[in-house]
């Protein structure tokens, strides 16, 4: 039961952060190279982080979707802000110059993104991913309260069966997953910084 809950929790967090990366990466790159888009995009990303995740899940849950899908949507929306902000902050003032340089040497946008832009923004992107992963790990507990998967289900079961051990088990696992993500992504960020400034 516990392993199933852990796997469910990891799936919720992993898929939502992955989706946020898929959507946020191009969004962040576009915003970095189009100054007219940067400001509105950053405003939208800030606005998204003003929304409490359990409230967003509740809002989606009322629609005819499953609790897991509602949680995935809410976590993706929340993580999107961290990813897009990570990219735009990483390419802060050098975005336009980088674009001109890569155009001058005849690189396609895709190639320039792969070889130059993403490696330069990588430390900041990893920082954003770390925040997104940790926040989502904690917030994914909400799914269990709406009948979805994850470690929140253990808390609900612990309360209904008056078993504090189940609650403690879920706390330990959430904290362990968050610490592992924190440590892993911090090491990756340090490595990325070292790669840029050897």
């Amino acid at each position, binding site marked *: 039961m516990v392993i199933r809950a852990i796997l469910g929790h990891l799936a919720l967090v992993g898929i939502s952060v992955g989706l946020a990366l898929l959507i946020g990466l191009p969004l962040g790159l576009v915003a970095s190279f189009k100054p007219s888009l940067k400001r509105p995009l950053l405003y939208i990303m800030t606005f998204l982080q003003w929304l*409490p995740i359990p409230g967003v899940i*509740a809002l989606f849950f*009322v629609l005819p979707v499953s609790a897991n899908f509602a949680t995935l949507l809410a976590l993706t929306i929340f993580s999107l802000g961290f990813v897009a902000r990570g990219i735009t902050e990483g390419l802060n003032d050098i975005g336009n110059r980088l674009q001109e340089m890569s155009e001058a040497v005849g690189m396609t946008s895709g190639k320039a993104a792969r070889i130059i832009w993403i490696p330069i923004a990588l430390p900041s992107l990893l920082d954003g991913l770390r925040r997104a992963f*940790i926040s989502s790990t904690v*917030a994914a507990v909400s799914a269990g309260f709406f009948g979805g998967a994850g470690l929140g289900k253990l*808390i609900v079961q612990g309360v209904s069966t008056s078993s*504090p051990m189940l609650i403690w088990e879920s706390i330990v696992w*959430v904290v362990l997953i968050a610490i592992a993500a*924190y440590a892993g992504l911090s090491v990756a960020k340090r490595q990325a910084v070292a790669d840029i400034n050897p």
Partner: protein
Amino acid sequence: MNVGELFTLPFTPVNSYAAACGGTLLFALGASLLGLIASLPLSFLSARFMRNSSVLTRVITAFGFIPVPAWMALLLPGQERWAGFFALLSLTLGTISPIWKKSYAALNDLPAPLMETASACGMSRGARLCRLELPIIAPALLAGFRRAIVMSLGWSLFLPVFGYAPGLDGLLFAALKAHRPMIAFTAAALLLVLSVLLCALIALWRRKLEKSHWRGGLAW
């Protein structure tokens, strides 16, 4: 969605929505203020006496990874008489870490020459705290407070599961149980609107504070 509900929704007393919003708002604000009161001395202590990577700072960071519903599940069941207090306590425990994180980072970034100059001018520790440190870290504190409010508004939604319902949360869960999705949707939407309004107000206040730093010098 039950179409019939669209017609019954206007007859749900507006007062009950207003009262629910008020209850949730007061509860979230109370928890965030208590979190601020608890985390401020903690951040001053940790900034003065701890290194950046000390065990205690890591413990406080890990403390923030504990989901608030877990605190509720540990503290609330069986507390009928003191349910309100323990509900507030569990939300407060969740708000300590975000406020501490922001204020601790801001305290570590205080310009050392400014602090040295203040000491050299004979400023007492209390004067430095009130006239330099607090005004400088105020915007960061507000950012932490904003995060704390968003968190407590969100997590308060689960209080009815543990037998306590101070506001919109009770309305939402009662509506879900009674299969009244329109009322549940309205309650969830109102919660989001409350959160956005509060965050916008705090963001405005923060911007005003930052501007006043530049206009009138650092010390108020």
